[in-house]
């Protein structure tokens, strides 16, 4: 079927089966490999992208749900001012180890700060609870959210 949507700011017409996973469309058809597959079952958040500004797991979204949607992957977010701030914050906090979870966390942090520009600790824990990280123990990722909040004051 033909699906009209926006991908990283560009209008696209996808010609795919309606059950094909957004994750495969992004990785295989568009080579957007910042979107990782850690589980394929909605548990890890490594495949997170923004759909109409909200973080979603691309492995759980069938193509049929994409009509008229706006999808942003880490690749499309990278050069934005908020992307740069999150990058700086993650590096400074030491929140990147093996890195397999990290692009997913970038999306989650963007979505979290969008909703709560000044998040409480609860907001942070809740906002990141869909993303697994086996390396860091999360504490430095929490810190990166605080740093992004500070450095990016006014951006969210």
């Amino acid at each position, binding site marked *: 079927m033909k699906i009209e949507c926006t991908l990283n700011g560009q209008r696209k017409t996808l010609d795919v089966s309606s059950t094909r996973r957004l994750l495969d469309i992004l*990785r295989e058809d568009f*080579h957007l*490999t*910042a*979107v*990782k*597959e*850690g*589980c*394929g*079952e909605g*548990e*890890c958040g*490594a495949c997170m992208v923004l759909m109409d500004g909200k973080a979603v797991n691309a492995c759980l979204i069938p193509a049929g749900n994409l009509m008229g949607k706006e999808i942003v992957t*880490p*690749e499309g977010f*990278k050069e934005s001012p908020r992307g740069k701030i*999150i*990058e700086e914050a*993650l*590096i*400074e906090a*030491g929140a*990147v*180890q*093996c*890195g*397999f*979870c*990290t*692009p997913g966390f*970038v999306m989650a942090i963007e979505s979290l700060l969008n909703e709560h520009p000044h998040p409480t600790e609860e907001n*942070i*824990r*809740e906002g*990141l*609870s869909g*993303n*697994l*990280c*086996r*390396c*860091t*123990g*999360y*504490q*430095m*990722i*929490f810190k990166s959210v605080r740093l992004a909040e500070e450095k990016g004051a006014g951006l969210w």
Partner: protein
Amino acid sequence: MKMSISKSINRTDAKGKIWGETPYLGDIAFDNPLYVKTVRSNQSHARISAIHIPTLPEGYWVIDKSHIPGKNYMKTVVSDHPILAEDEVLYIGQPILLVAGPDREKVYGLSKEIRIDYEPLPAVYTLEESEKQGMVFTDYTLSKGNPVEAFSQAEKILQDEYSTGLQEHVYLEPQGMAAEFKEDTVFVYGSMQCPFYVEEALTEALNMPADKIRVIQTTTGGAFGGKEEFPSLIACHVAIATCVTGHPVILIYDRDEDILSTTKRHPSLVRYKVGLDKNNTLTVLDIDILYNAGAYAGISPVVLQRGIFSSTNVYNFQHIRVRGRNFRTHTVPSGAFRGFGAPQSIFAMEMLMHNIAISLGLEPIDFKMKHCLKQGDTSCTGGKIHDKIILPELLERALTLSEYRKKIQTHKPFTGIGLSLFLHGCGFTGNGEQTIRGKIILQKKGKDVLIKVSSVEMGQGADTILRKIVAHTLELPIHHVQCEVRDTGLIPDSGPTVASRTVMIVGGLLQKAAEEMKSRWDTEENLEISKVYHHPDFLVWDNDTFTGNAYPTYSWGVNVAEVAIDPISYAIQVKKITAVYDVGRAIDERTLRGQMEGGIVQGMGWATIEVMHADEGTLVQRTLTDYKIPTSTDIPDIVCDFIENPYEFGPFGAKCAGELPFTGPAPAIAAAVSNALGIPIKELPITPEKLLEMKNDED
């Protein structure tokens, strides 16, 4: 003045990972690859009586044991795991066949259509049953002093038993490998800790010389021991598939397949008989350690050795007998996992000490400290501890930071506080380092320096840290120092990336090479310096009797855990962990903290929510929906501190760090739960169900 080495710098690999630009195996485009799927046993123990393969479309292959050019086993410590099953299978998930072809869906479909007939054979699932049937793989004993006589003189004799469960690594990047032929050489790419282990396994499986095999590590999305020996098996699969088909091939596990079929942490059972004198001092211990190795022995003998040598933890006992045995069960093989057998035996020892103290009406800290090792004492293998032990300082700092003494007096019902002391033997066990003799090369080209080692970056920060050691020594900006790709055709064998040895051993060699390079820097434009590891002469080890220095030195830690338990559901919430460590000196404080915090959370998972068991050989928790690892809502506040105690033979005084933090949380949390509920904890994971059961039994 030169900056302290410990001052944190930004990780050199962070930016590329943040934006997903650094390619992991699954992100690399191979030229028209075939996809490979593994067909596995659905039986715990059975003879294969027939295999029915559907008619294959053109361009599709089914590969079995008869296609293996060399030996049908995966080379490791005990090379008993067949690459593809012969006529018997020993666990659910054991690889039997490979299906390869250009369309992934079709390959998956074909693999499901293959029917295998089995004749079931008797299977054994538990350690206890395996012990009863005498299915022992390895049986080691060590002794020190005169335990028989010491028991005869003991005032009081106690017996006790402790156990721990399975744990899955859950590195976020599932296992995977790819292979291709270029001219007459096989290239194998993948996520791994030990490129030369993989190379060695391939030489045997393919019956090819090492110079016709290139193993290239791709960016590795977490490993924790899970990518120590296991990748060799998948590497054999893809290499054989590329030989058979003549095409590039790629095989990446999906998460469920990874959970089903890759190695796990050894479940354990530790039994004690101990003697005390009239001053309530432990004078003699008989320790019986049983590890469940699963269906094949593999790397388990070495895991068991570390378990045995760590079994007296930070304590000094004169009379000891330790027996350690690995048992076979018809379950997925156990393997390397952060801590490598030590966390199990240390958990048991810490809880034994805790529970004895409580039963004698003593404060556990006082009872433990009375038995602690001091510099000049000997370990359970009789090896003299040469280095300064600063455990009392670590303890004092942890008690102060956590306000332990106040909190233990004033804690409310259903809240508790507990403490653990622990150590980790740095580097390989026994004569491992002397046998491996790690080699490094440092190359200078003009103003740039290249590090050549086989120690990999797998998330722990090895690239940044090794570059930092060299850059700091040469007083160069870090971007002038690079690491060579871990390609066995380009690098020397500095040893596997295991045993928390990378900084201390490999970093130490690099520091020496860099010092030499510095003295020749101005006069030589191009320069290559290589160094081979030499074990300090004063360390002795006899591998037949297990006597001497099992490790060159130790890192140490103290954890204080605070828990709150829901009075109705008995759900455990770990509120806070305070951790103080002696790892010699930090090479980079923030990277080190990252290791500690990650290790603490992984250790907490093992102790609490990471429940995994096999029901008659079938894993009950087979997806990440069923097998829970800690998320951002589960983790405690972590306070982490270090006290410097530089080690003479480590670079800038550094010792080992990566595995140490895993060990502390379980016994500290168990002690805290026991403090909260007034019941002794002897089993991991500690689940609400078990606590409720224990409480009900008590009432």
